[in-house]
């Protein structure tokens, strides 16, 4: 079981409020990603749940029990750190076994569990090596092995893939997601990379300046961003924002349209503009278009289009995919 509920959780360091009134319900077995720009409080929130920091106010419930004031080890969670935080003087076996040893399990149980975890993570040949003799990906797997062997109620991941190179990151991303599904254990995963968030999460928590901006499934966030921040943060390239008045909708403050929802229209259709940069990726073409009063627009067109800088084009937004925001940046739903 691993149901985690935050009720009015606050955290401040002196006069600085890092987390302002966080409320969240994480279902058992789900993979939840905390995402947001650096400094948004996502790591702090994770550490509050882990018990590595004390909350300033509010409650954290794990399976209905308030764990505020409970030491980390007693919360039944395990954590994978950004630096892996492997114990350098212990072998891989020692690292994975450490938590079990501290829990006072009999030797035979420890061995059995460690070997099972190692087998799951393809670490069996490396059990007697020291961390410094392993590659980055292997170290990462040891860190994960250390987490799973304790059979926790939930895994906490703190930007675990940020130290890996791009190719390995994609691979580990899949492995982690797969493993989580396999174990069916609740996971909270912190990242600043929205692609990671979109690809791995069952649900995403978007954080900004200590506030939870939106909590929902990846597609929900993509299709129905609750506000300007989420709209701008989720999706790549970024959503285009144009002032409502200029776009002919004076009742809304800002009109948002994603680059992939801008179509190249016939002359006279939609918004006119001049191509300032055209990026040809083969599968897509990215056009950066100077649209006068509308500002700089990005358009993503599937396939190859033979435009070059200086060409004059017309862009027409998909009317069904327009996002309207009021002057406070909150989405207007009709």
């Amino acid at each position, binding site marked *: 079981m691993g149901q985690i509920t935050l009720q009015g959780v606050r955290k401040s360091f002196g006069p600085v409020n890092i987390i302002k009134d966080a409320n969240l319900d994480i279902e058992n077995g789900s993979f939840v990603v905390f995402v947001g720009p650096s400094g948004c409080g996502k790591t702090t929130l994770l550490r509050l749940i*882990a018990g*590595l920091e004390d909350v300033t106010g509010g409650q954290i419930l794990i399976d209905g029990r308030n764990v505020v004031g409970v*030491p*980390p*080890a*007693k919360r039944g*969670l*395990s*954590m994978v*750190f*950004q*630096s892996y*935080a*492997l*114990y*350098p*003087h*212990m072998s891989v076996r020692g690292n994975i076994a*450490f*938590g079990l040893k*501290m*829990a006072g399990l009999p030797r035979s149980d420890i061995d059995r569990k460690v070997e099972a975890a190692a087998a799951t993570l393809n670490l069996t040949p490396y059990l007697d090596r020291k961390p410094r003799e392993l590659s980055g990906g292997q170290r990462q797997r040891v860190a994960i092995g*250390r987490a799973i062997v*304790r059979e926790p109620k939930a895994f906490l991941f703190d930007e675990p893939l940020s130290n890996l190179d791009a190719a390995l990151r994609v691979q580990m991303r899949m492995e982690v997601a797969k493993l989580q599904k396999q174990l069916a254990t609740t996971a909270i995963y912190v990242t600043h990379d929205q692609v990671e968030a979109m690809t791995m999460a069952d649900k995403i928590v978007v954080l900004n300046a200590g506030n939870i901006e939106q909590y929902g499934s990846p597609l929900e966030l993509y299709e129905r961003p609750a506000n300007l921040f989420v709209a701008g943060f989720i999706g790549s390239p970024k959503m285009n924002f144009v002032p409502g008045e200029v776009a002919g909708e004076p009742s809304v403050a800002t009109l948002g349209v994603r680059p992939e929802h801008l179509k190249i229209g016939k002359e006279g259709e939609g918004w006119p503009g001049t191509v300032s940069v055209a990026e040809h990726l083969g599968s897509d073409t990215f056009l950066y278009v100077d649209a006068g009063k509308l500002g700089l627009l990005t358009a993503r067109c599937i396939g190859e289009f033979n435009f070059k800088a200086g060409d004059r084009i017309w862009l027409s937004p998909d009317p069904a995919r327009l996002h309207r925001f009021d002057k406070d940046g909150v989405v207007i739903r009709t």
Partner: protein
Amino acid sequence: MATQQTQVLGRALLTPAVALLFIWMIVPLAMTIYFSTLHYSLLDSEAWSFVGLENFRYFLTDPAFLTALRNTLVLVGSVLAITILLGTPLALLLDQQVVGRSIIRLMVIAPFFVMPTVSALVWKNLLMHPVSGLFAWVATLVGTTPIDWFNDVPLFSVILIVAWQWLPFATLILLTALQSQDEEQKEAAEMDGASALSTFIYLTLPHLARPITVVILIETIFLLTVFAEIFVTTGGGPGLATTNIAFLIYTQALVQYDVGNASAGGLVAVVIANIVAFFLVRIVGRNLEA
């Protein structure tokens, strides 16, 4: 990466420095070995003669030699034990967030900057003196007989003084090591349910193994030649109680400018230092591999 040409050039450029370093090391050693085979006293410099190993025989058969050797080893061993056993908790303490930490650190480190002769004088006359010392005053205050330090436990008294001087060094090195310990590792251990003691045993201690080795080796080098503290406090006495090898060389040779005997004694000391270092490296050296 180097081509043959750059290798040759590199060696050619290094040669003068290496040669100079070699000469700088080897010439004094060679001279010492040469002098150790001579009967040669500065105060009788006209009458020098080759005597072979006579100087070594004279030094090694000195009735005081074995006592001095034992005192040397006891002194080195005790000071090492005290500085490391006290230095580790002290470093742990200083690593905590406390008010005025920088001032406390400065105070802890201060003894290291006191000249050995000065600290020996202070300890002898202001602290340990059985009549006018602070310890005697405290002892009288609580109604016990003051300890006559340099009379009853002379070697231990010297050990205390030397340990006091070297404690800051051990603390400082260990403190630096503690500060370089990875914070996330400690948190990982916390998540793993390790108590403070377990964290210390399983994480901190292995992390400190290397700096402790460094402390042991560096301190040993200096402790084998402790002289000023002995010269100032006890003059090697009473009897031979505080005579170490360095002091024995002093009384046997240096004080009367006997170059031959002093060289022989010095070489014996070098051999002893090497033997001690060999065993220490063997004992603690395994940690260097971790």
